[in-house]
């Protein structure tokens, strides 16, 4: 349906861009018991007695041994969440290879780039032909 709609629009001279959605059915799910989490601020009294800014989180996936690090934000909680997201991406690439979300996205971007290039080449050809026709060269 959408395809037909798009084709119809193309005839009239419009085109709509649909956002890319990857197939994420194969993405691995993390099990908290399989993770080992480490913090820079490991030892010491902790709590109110310490004022440190280092909020780096190191997360290890025990079955595969994959390790990620995150100190992207200033909140430890956020870093823990982001570390988990990073780990999922990494495991997805490792397990699913060409079917991983990142690989799918990359293929999509590549295809988009190629389409664009092809259009540019076509346009420049047309221009050259036109110049030739009008004896402008």
């Amino acid at each position, binding site marked *: 349906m959408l395809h037909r709609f798009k084709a119809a629009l193309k005839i009239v001279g419009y085109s709509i861009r649909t956002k890319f959605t990857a197939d994420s059915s194969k993405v691995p799910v993390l099990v908290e018991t399989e993770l080992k*989490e480490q*913090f820079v*601020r*490991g*030892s010491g*009294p*902790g*709590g*109110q*007695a*310490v*004022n*440190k*800014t*280092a*909020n780096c989180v190191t997360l290890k996936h025990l079955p595969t041994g994959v390790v990620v690090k995150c*100190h*992207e*934000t*200033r*909140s*430890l*909680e*956020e870093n*823990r969440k982001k570390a988990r997201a990073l780990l999922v991406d990494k495991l997805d690439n490792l397990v699913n290879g060409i079917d991983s979300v990142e690989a799918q996205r990359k293929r999509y971007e590549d295809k988009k780039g190629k389409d664009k290039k092809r259009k540019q080449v076509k346009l420049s050809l047309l221009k050259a032909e036109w110049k030739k026709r009008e004896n402008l060269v």
Partner: protein
Amino acid sequence: MKRAVIRHTLNKIWSLTHSKTFNVFHAPSFVNLNGKVFHLRLHSTWQSNNGNGSDSGSFTGKKAKKVKEILKAWLDMFHSCHISEPKQSIEHIIAHTLGSRSISSVYKFNNKVLSLREIQQINELCQQRLKRLPIQYIIQEWDFRGLTLKMSPPVFIPRPETEMLVDVVLNEVERKATDSVLEFCCGSGAISISLLKSQPQLNVTAIDKSKEACGLTELNAKLHDVSSRLKVIHEEITEDHPDAILKKYDVIVSNPPYLFEDDMISLQPEIKLYEDLEALDGGIDGLKVIKNILRVSSGLLNCDGRVFLEVDPRHPDLIRSWLRQYPAMKLHLERVYKDFCDKDRFVEIVKK
């Protein structure tokens, strides 16, 4: 006697550093307690700054122009002055000057040539760091869970442990489907505002005895657009029922001062000099404020209502036995939660 002297000295240092005429070189280098001398670690740093501290601004200003050069120059400076977390300090200061919240931007713009004004700002902020001002006060903001909150001295800077307390409380708020929460000792408002942001139907009443803390909580609530659902009350918690609170609650939360008085002397200079020690000091057993909160909460909780407190790992046992001594309060310690370092950090107390 000893405790009184420690407290007196800490108060004196605190008031010294917070007076307008404060000069770092007039600060005492040690505290003499009954013949025992406690050296304040920060003095040696200040003295070493005295020699080259005034030049540091110009040495980085004239020679270094790129981000990575400034970074290197100040990193060396912080190292030589034994500033804690030297790398993070300069990274956060540069990121702040570049208008970013993440450290990665510092390395993304490694080769960016800084304007004179930016260099000047970095130098000024780094000078403050040399005086041991906490990074959170220098850049005047810090992240708590997903929120960026304003920070200003001397209001207590929220610690990452407390982020987990919010999770515990959110769980209970959802389970009870309650629409109101009471917070004691709100400080910068981190807990209250996080709760309000996660639960759109919730109303929170926050109490703090410090005027600065109340002001900062109100400011942060305004910045996150939740001030219509947050009531801030400036009042000290004593044994008596607070006048301003008229209703009963299902959920009460607090991160009260819980440090043992004896541990106060060994705190980092960043905390000792700039943070409100009243927000940390829990008296001889660390329970001074906690006991008042529990006494008051006993009257403020509905049946089966709960208090959630952040405490010292030594506290759960002490609180359990103290509550047993006063059965009239009808409070029972139900559960102890660990923090991310696997230390007993939060207690859940239920009213039966």
